Structures are given as structure tokens and as C-alpha cells.
């Protein structure tokens, strides 16, 4: 493996989710230990499972075709750029990459388009053109009006984390000096009905890692990081404290919808990230786990984390605050991990009450001070891919 990723700093982060419309509001929700699951309002459905909508979200500049995922991404991006003291003008003179993960925005899944096709046998072209123009990374580049290396990752629930890892890989390869990376997804009836059909949707607010957990709640949002080379940041007079220290991915190669019972892919991804970052497990202060609240995910993830880090590791799932935001999750949770390191405290793993004796790690029950410089965020995906990111704080 190459040397540790000392070349990726994080000068800016942005987030929008049910936990808050920006990172400040998110921290306030975390501090108050408040979460806001509610009834679905964005579309009608006969399924009655709580969701985590980004209540109050309204795009400052509505995207031309009204694609909510793109609007969420641009909203989080604006916050990240502002913190990084960057704008489209500055980006225009830099070698920029845009790598974003999503699930629903990558599919030609317009129900009205298909209904009309079924009724008339003809394909209405505006939805097709909207899809072709609405590729997430390309749409963000077009919004900024810049030339960029663009890539949209559609790796299911690890998409956002994978996009951040790819951003780092582009920088390692010298392709970019700055990368906009993360994920975004809106609530959509496709996964809402699909997860219900799979028996993975919970009728109550989700309770990740809890003994009585009954599944996940879907959410929506976007989490964006600005990745920048130290040379570029220094040239701008910026010395970000937060850095991306490593990444690791590995596949279970086991099943389309179920994780490997021994968590082999996740353990391999964690070994890879620690090796890449050259950080021993004992130096990791906490893990922001994928923690969806499904029986299998939490059981297998909890055991894999204990195997790598030991049972005393501080872990939490923030999905109790946001729901499972699918392609956005890896981006949002990267932001939350960075906030935890920077702020020096973590919220409780909300929803967790009772220990599952089959899971050897115990999620945080109360707000907790962070004692350490390094933290890991994990993402597990449909199809068996597992991705881990390791963040560090420069002293």
C-alpha cells in the first residue's frame, strides 16, 4: 500500500438531513439529543413507516428540473464551500474533481413516465432528458459552472463513503488538487416500498444496535466534504485541522442483500483502512458505525468492530437522528465523524436502550467526550461492499 494519506485535508464540510439543515443545527440536535422521525409527507404511500425528512428544507436556488437530490447536494455544498472559503470563481482556476454517491438519483425511476408508457406505448422524453441532465456529479459541476473530473458512484448504501475514498484516490494520483466528495439522496417511493417488501423497514423510530431493534427508517439528506491537498490549502493560507487519513474497501462476495455472517468484508475493509492510515486500532477514539437498525447489519457489524477494535471501543450510530439516507449516508456520517473529532464530543447512539448479548460492543448511551485524534466511519452496502474511512485531527 502507499504511504498514509497525509495529502488530503478537509477545509470544509456541509450537511443537511433530518438532524438539521446545516452542521450547526445538526450539532444542536445532537446536543439536545433530539430526533424527528415522522410521517411521510413528501409523497403519498399506503405504507406507514416513519421517515426522517429534512423538514423545512427549501433550496435557495431551485434546481431547474426540481430534482430534490441535486438540491440537497447543492445545499450542503454551499455550506462546505463557505467554510472552506471557496467559491465557483476560485474553483474555476483549480484542478477540481466532483465525486458524489447516490442511489435514487441514478435511476430512470419516474413512476408517471412509466405509467404513461404503459398506457400509451410511447415514451415521454422530458423525464428521459431530465435523467440524462440530472447525473448528480455532472449537475453539481454545471451548477458551479466549472470544468471538473466528475463521477457519480452508485454503490448502494456505501456510495457516499466510496465517493470520498475515490476523491482521495484522485488526489493520490495527482489528478486533482481539490475534490468535492460525499453523497446525497432524497426520499423516494422506490426504496420506501422496496425496503418494506424486504421486511427491513421498521414501523417505529429505529433503534440501532438495540436488542429489540426491528429495522431501519429511511431518511434523506446530503453530506459533502471538501478534500484539498495541503499544498493547495497552504497556498490559500488555510491550515485545516481535519484530515482524511485512510480508506479501505472490501466485498463480502456472499449475497445480494445479506451481509456475510462472519463480516469478512467489513473486517477486511477495517484492516485495509488501518493499514493504509498506519494507525493501530488502539489509537482510534471512536467508530461512527453504519448501524442501520436491522437485525443482521447491527449483529454482524457489532461483532466485526469488536473483533478489530475490542469490545470497549466507543461506537455510535447516527442513523437514530437521520434515518438511513442510503447514498447520502456515507457522506453525512463522514461529516458527523469529522464534527465529533473537531468538537471533541459525541452524542449518544440515540434509540439504543438495551444491550443485545450477541453484540459484544455497547453503543454510547450518553453524550461522551472524545479522547483521541482518530476516528473511523463505516458503510456497508447492498451487494456486500464495505467501506471504512479514517479521519484524523492535526494537533
Amino acid at each position: 500500500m502507499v504511504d498514509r494519506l497525509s495529502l488530503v485535508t478537509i477545509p470544509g464540510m456541509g450537511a443537511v438531513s433530518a438532524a438539521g439543515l446545516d452542521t450547526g443545527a445538526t450539532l444542536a440536535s445532537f446536543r439536545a439529543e433530539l430526533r424527528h422521525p415522522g410521517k411521510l409527507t413528501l409523497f403519498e404511500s399506503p405504507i406507514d413507516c416513519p421517515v426522517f425528512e429534512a423538514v423545512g428544507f427549501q433550496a435557495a436556488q431551485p434546481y431547474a428540473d426540481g430534482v430534490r437530490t441535486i438540491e440537497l447536494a447543492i445545499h450542503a455544498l454551499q455550506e462546505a464551500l463557505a467554510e472552506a472559503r471557496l467559491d465557483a470563481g476560485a474553483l474555476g482556476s483549480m484542478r477540481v474533481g466532483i465525486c458524489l454517491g447516490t442511489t435514487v438519483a441514478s435511476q430512470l425511476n419516474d413512476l408517471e413516465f412509466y405509467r404513461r408508457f404503459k398506457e400509451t406505448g410511447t415514451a415521454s422524453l422530458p423525464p428521459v432528458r431530465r435523467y440524462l441532465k440530472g447525473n448528480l456529479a455532472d449537475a453539481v459541476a454545471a451548477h458551479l459552472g466549472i470544468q471538473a473530473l466528475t463521477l457519480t458512484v452508485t454503490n448502494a448504501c456505501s456510495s457516499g463513503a466510496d465517493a470520498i475514498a475515490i476523491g482521495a484516490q484522485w488526489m493520490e494520483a495527482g489528478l486533482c488538487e481539490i475534490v468535492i466528495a460525499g453523497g446525497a439522496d432524497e426520499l423516494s417511493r422506490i426504496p420506501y416500498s422496496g425496503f418494506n417488501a424486504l421486511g427491513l423497514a421498521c414501523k417505529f423510530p429505529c433503534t440501532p444496535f438495540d436488542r429489540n431493534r426491528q429495522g431501519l427508517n429511511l431518511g434523506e439528506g446530503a453530506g459533502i466534504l471538501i478534500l484539498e491537498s495541503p499544498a493547495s490549502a497552504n497556498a490559500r493560507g488555510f491550515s485545516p485541522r481535519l484530515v482524511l487519513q485512510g480508506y479501505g474497501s472490501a466485498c463480502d462476495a456472499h449475497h445480494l442483500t445479506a451481509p456475510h455472517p462472519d463480516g469478512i468484508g467489513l473486517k477486511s475493509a477495517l484492516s485495509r483502512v488501518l493499514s493504509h492510515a498506519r494507525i493501530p486500532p488502539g489509537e482510534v477514539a471512536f467508530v461512527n458505525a453504519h448501524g442501520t437498525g436491522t437485525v443482521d447489519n447491527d449483529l454482524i457489524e457489532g461483532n466485526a468492530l469488536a473483533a478489530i477494535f475490542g469490545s470497549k471501543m466507543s461506537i455510535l450510530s447516527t442513523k437514530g437522528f437521520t434515518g438511513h439516507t442510503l447514498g447520502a449516508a456515507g457522506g453525512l456520517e463522514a461529516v458527523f465523524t469529522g464534527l465529533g473529532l473537531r468538537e471533541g464530543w459525541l452524542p449518544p447512539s440515540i434509540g439504543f436502550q438495551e444491550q443485545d448479548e450477541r453484540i459484544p460492543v455497547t453503543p454510547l448511551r450518553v453524550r461522551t467526550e472524545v479522547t483521541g485524534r482518530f476516528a473511523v466511519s463505516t458503510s456497508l452496502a447492498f451487494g456486500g461492499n464495505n467501506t471504512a474511512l479514517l479521519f484524523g485531527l492535526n494537533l
Partner: protein
Amino acid sequence: MKPTCIQGIGIVAACGRGVNALRSALHRGWQPPVSVTVPGGLELPVYALPPGTLDDKSLGRKVRRADRLTKIAVFAAADALADAQLPADLERQRVGVIVASALGTHKTTFQFLDEILTFGEAGVSPTVFSHSVQNAPAAYIASVLGLQGPVLTLTQVHFAFHHALILAACWLANGQCDHVLVGNMDESGTVMHAICRSLLTLAPDGKIRPFAFAANSAGIPGEGSAFLLLSSTAAPGAYGTVRHVEMGSWIPPARPPDLHFLEADGMIPDESGYAIPAGTGLRLAGYAPLFGSMTGGSAIGCAVAALSLKEQTRFASPVPDSAPELSICRETEAGLVQSILLTRLNCTGATARIHLNKD
């Protein structure tokens, strides 16, 4: 970008399945597309998989629940891995998979929408849903072939396969992987046929003309998948190397390649921009008339180029109609082929260029 070695290729397309089918199609030359009837009774010419292409008793058992697109991708990927003849003790956690597509699992997504309309949201099939997720084909490739490295799917309208090649080179250069299976997949289906009928100008005689440089280009929809098994180190018997991939404005190559594949296939409405790269005096070839118009045609183009490099053969362009001043491969002939450039344009006028070398 660090060069990567092409150790294996796999293809499933209108030519059939496998390297032998590809070679035969290149020698046979242009064949007319088949015709399908789209809703409303109109006929649509398509370059579809020949009947029986997906019949496979050994792999078929492992993908019996999978949708058609997944089978196409799995068979192409499996063939590329087998073609590479990697050692039996291959470290499978050191093999990555990257699957690129512009439209992905659209056929199964439409099937899921049909489930919603037919059975209601509370009555949809979980199997159809899970197969509609964009990374389902990549997940099958990993599980069928037992590959436990990083597995990634990317969905990109423009130059998806080129992005995948760049990323594969990153994975090999940074030591994450020793080998990466990288490919593209496209599938046609009833709804896509109707979209193509409305969106594409169809070539009236069924012939895609890569050298027409038409402002109102014409295509014929195609489908298929091609995979390359790329390795970080050169190996005996390899096809060649992917030396460089670049995107942006057209820049003439610093060293003229022996062959220049123009990937004009009627997918963009105005192909007049191909006249500029074509006008640089390089020896031209174009193979889209064999496979049809596809967003992922560059993967198949790379498979043709790899075969050309390995067998030191300049395959005839199947539809060489053009202005006579262009130098086009019109006959299949043996000859020195050390380097090949593949050029594709998108609808914004940007080009993507893949440079392949024999060594």
C-alpha cells in the same frame, strides 16, 4: 496515470459471447440488425444478443435468479477473468471490480415500477427491488467469481467506461489491488426501445457510418457488455497496456498511433466533431456498425483494440463509407500494431481518449 496491463477480455454482445465470437464477427464484417416491434406496432432495428447467448449451464446456476443485465455482465466479467489465466492460488481479496454504465438496471427498475402500478406499493416483489439496485450486477460478479477486493458501480452518462479505467489504474497504482475487472454494460428492453424510437435518428439501411461525420447522425441501438482484466504488472501473453486515458478538448497525440478508432455510433445527434480528430492523417477504423449504438461502446472498442494488438491484425472497418481522402482500414490484414488510440465524443463536444500500446 500509471499504465495497466490487459491480461484478459470478455465480451457479450451482438457478435455473441467470447473472444472467438468477437474475432469471427470482425472477420465476417457488417451484418444487418434484427428487428423488434415496439409498442404501437412500429419496427425498431437493434443489435441484440443472438438467441442462446446467455445459455450457460456452469455459470447459469449461480445467476438463475438474476435479471438479464446481470447475466450479461457476469458472463462478460467471468470470461475476462478466465481469459487472463491467473494462477489458481489467486488472492481474491486483491481483485477489484468496477462496473460502469449510463443507464444501469433500467429494465428491472421499470419492472419494479410495473409492480407498483400492478400490485400497489405494499405488494411489490422484494426480489425485483433488490435486482433494480444499480450495483446488483457488480454484486453478482463478486459473489459468482468470489472476488473480495473493492467492488464499485458508477453511473455516468458521459464517458462512464473511461472514468472506470482511470479509477482502475488508481487502484492498481496505489496497491489496493493486483488485478481489477473493469467493464461496461448496456441492455435494451421494451421501454428503452420506445425511448430509442423517439430519441435516436435511426440509420435507414441499418448501417451505422462512423466516418460520415454527420451533423444529423444516425444510429442503431445495441446492447452488451465488455470487461477487461487489468493488472498492475505485465504478464506473458497479455493483450497490451492501457497507457493513458484523457478527457477534454481534442489534442492530437504527441506520437501518432498505428490505428485510430473513431467511436462514432450515432449516440450523439451531431457527429460532425469527429471530423477534427479524423483529419489528423491517422489510419482510421470504426467498429460500431457491428455492435450498435451504446453509451458503453468504448468497452467493446477496447476489447477490439486489445485483440488487434495481441494478434497484430488490423481488422477491416465494417462500414468504411467515407470521403476518399481518409485512410481507413478497409481490409483485414496482418501488420505491425504497436499503438491504438480510441476517441469518443459526447454531446457537449468533449472528447475522451484511450491510448493502448502493445507493450
